[in-house]
């Protein structure tokens, strides 16, 4: 079983002209868990990952796998599996040959492409030309490329983008399984909600800078709790709640109460004799904190 090594960014900086795409990024991604690398589009996620993989030269700083830069790894594909956002396929080549090309270049066993296709469920389509693949199939093929060398470290850029709900569930289980085996798993996304159920740890960057680092639950700092409630006589319901001292906002499907517990709002309605048709507690902490961290431009 391959054991993951930590991914280490140290003062990583990339400047394009006068623009700092990534500035002074320092952090460690530990093995044994799934780490989400989050930020709005253009925040510098892809540039950071490309520097980590030796595709883009940092202006300063380093990005290594347990101290070794990608280009210095003895057997790169067998150590780190990566899939980047850009669909890097020759459309006229079959999936099997696509993988064979890179397995050969990396000196991997002849059986590697077949095994990788098996893992991502593409065996049945292996001899079709990639040009005819759907977005979801391309995502799976990108993942097959990453898994080619059975690596202990996985670096995936937007792996969930383009997958159908079934695919999302599948990749979630796969990634969690790999992390449980002790591998290092780093996945990027511009949507927190997309990876919320997959990641243990989050790294959030905005404008090339680290803005948050910690467990997923650490994001849920806001104590604003909302309750959504509805009744046939919505006007009276809102009036009753407002007179109890709450801030009320009108929604298309009911009334939104700020800083409230569902149980309390239910009791208010019951005491006033209003039959409630819907009542739910909303916890918006994660998404709100995320948006607050990445700023206004982080509009999703």
């Amino acid at each position, binding site marked *: 079983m391959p054991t993951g090594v930590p991914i280490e960014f140290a003062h990583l900086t990339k400047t394009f002209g006068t623009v700092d795409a990534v500035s002074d990024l320092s952090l460690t991604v530990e093995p044994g868990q799934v780490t989400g690398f989050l930020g709005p589009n253009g925040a510098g996620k892809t540039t950071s990952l490309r520097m980590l993989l030796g595709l883009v030269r940092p202006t300063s700083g380093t990005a290594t796998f347990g101290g070794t830069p990608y280009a210095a790894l003895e057997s790169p594909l067998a150590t780190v599996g990566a899939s980047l956002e850009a669909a890097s396929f020759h459309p006229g*080549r079959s999936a099997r040959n696509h993988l064979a090309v*890179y397995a050969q270049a990396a000196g991997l066993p002849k059986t590697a492409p077949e095994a990788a296709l098996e893992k991502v469920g593409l065996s049945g389509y292996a001899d079709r030309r990639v040009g005819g693949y759907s977005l979801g199939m391309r995502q799976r093929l990108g993942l097959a490329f990453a898994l080619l060398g059975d690596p202990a470290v996985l670096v995936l850029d937007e792996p969930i983008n383009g997958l159908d709900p079934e695919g999302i569930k599948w990749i979630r289980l796969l990634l969690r399984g790999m992390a449980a085996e002790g591998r290092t798993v780093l996945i990027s996304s511009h949507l927190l909600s997309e990876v919320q159920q997959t990641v243990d740890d989050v790294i959030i960057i905005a404008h090339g800078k680290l803005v948050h680092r910690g467990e997923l639950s650490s994001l849920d700092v806001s104590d604003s709790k909302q309750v959504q409630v509805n009744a046939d006589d919505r006007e009276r319901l809102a009036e009753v709640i407002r007179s109890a001292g709450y801030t009320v906002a009108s929604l298309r499907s009911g009334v939104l109460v700020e800083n409230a517990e569902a149980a309390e709002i239910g009791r208010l309605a019951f005491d006033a004799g209003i039959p409630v048709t819907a009542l739910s507690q909303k916890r918006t902490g994660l998404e709100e904190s995320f948006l607050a961290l990445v700023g206004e431009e982080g509009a999703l």
Partner: protein
Amino acid sequence: MKLVAAVRSEFTKVLSTRLWWVLAVIMVGYVALCAGGLAAILSGVGTRAGGPVVPEAQLPLLIYSFATAVGYVFPVLFGALAVTSEFRFQALTPTFLAQPRRVIALSGKFITMLLVGAVFGVIALLASMGAGAGVLAGFGVDPLLGDPEVWAFVGRSVLAMALWAVIGVGLGTLVPSQVAAIVIVLAFTQFLEPLLRFGSSITDWSAQLGQFLPGAASDALVGSSIFLIATPAGTGLEWWQGGLVLAGIAVVATVIGYFTSWRRDVS
């Protein structure tokens, strides 16, 4: 060892898409038509219209040399496309992930294209000699297939085609845009160079420069070409000098291209 792996990988790239045989089929048709057609004109029709233009003993080589004289555009195009398709399909990302030492990746491509170019050479010669010898024999001209000089010519032609393919690699690294590379290959080989060669033959000093044009160097290496007939001043280069000129162009272009495109950030 890593270089061997890179060459194997590049061969799989070549063989797993359709381009190589599509280009080979077009090349065979084009070369066979030119060789067979000119063999018929020079050995048959030509003799009746006031004596042969070319001495009969030189005729077979001239006809066979259509393999390189018109066929060379195919290996150069293939070599260029082998590089530009990496840029076009963003395939450099997986290529460099599998082999982060970019010198090795490019060297693997260079060696592979040298071999693929040689195979194009063999195919082109089969076409020119097959069609040419058949037509010559039909008109009663000895196709000289047993002549060792012809076989030495065959060897030099295969080498020329191999070198053209790596000139293509050099061009592709210098001009990574696929469309631009195709336009340059076609414009230079089909139009600009013939014009330059003709123009340079007018004065002595320009002829000295003209012999270093790649097409002229290629003809010098091969030792026979329809263009050598058209410019009787000929070329001053020895066959091995012609080979060195081609190899030099390929290596210099590839090394410069390595720094201008291959080594750059992939994003």
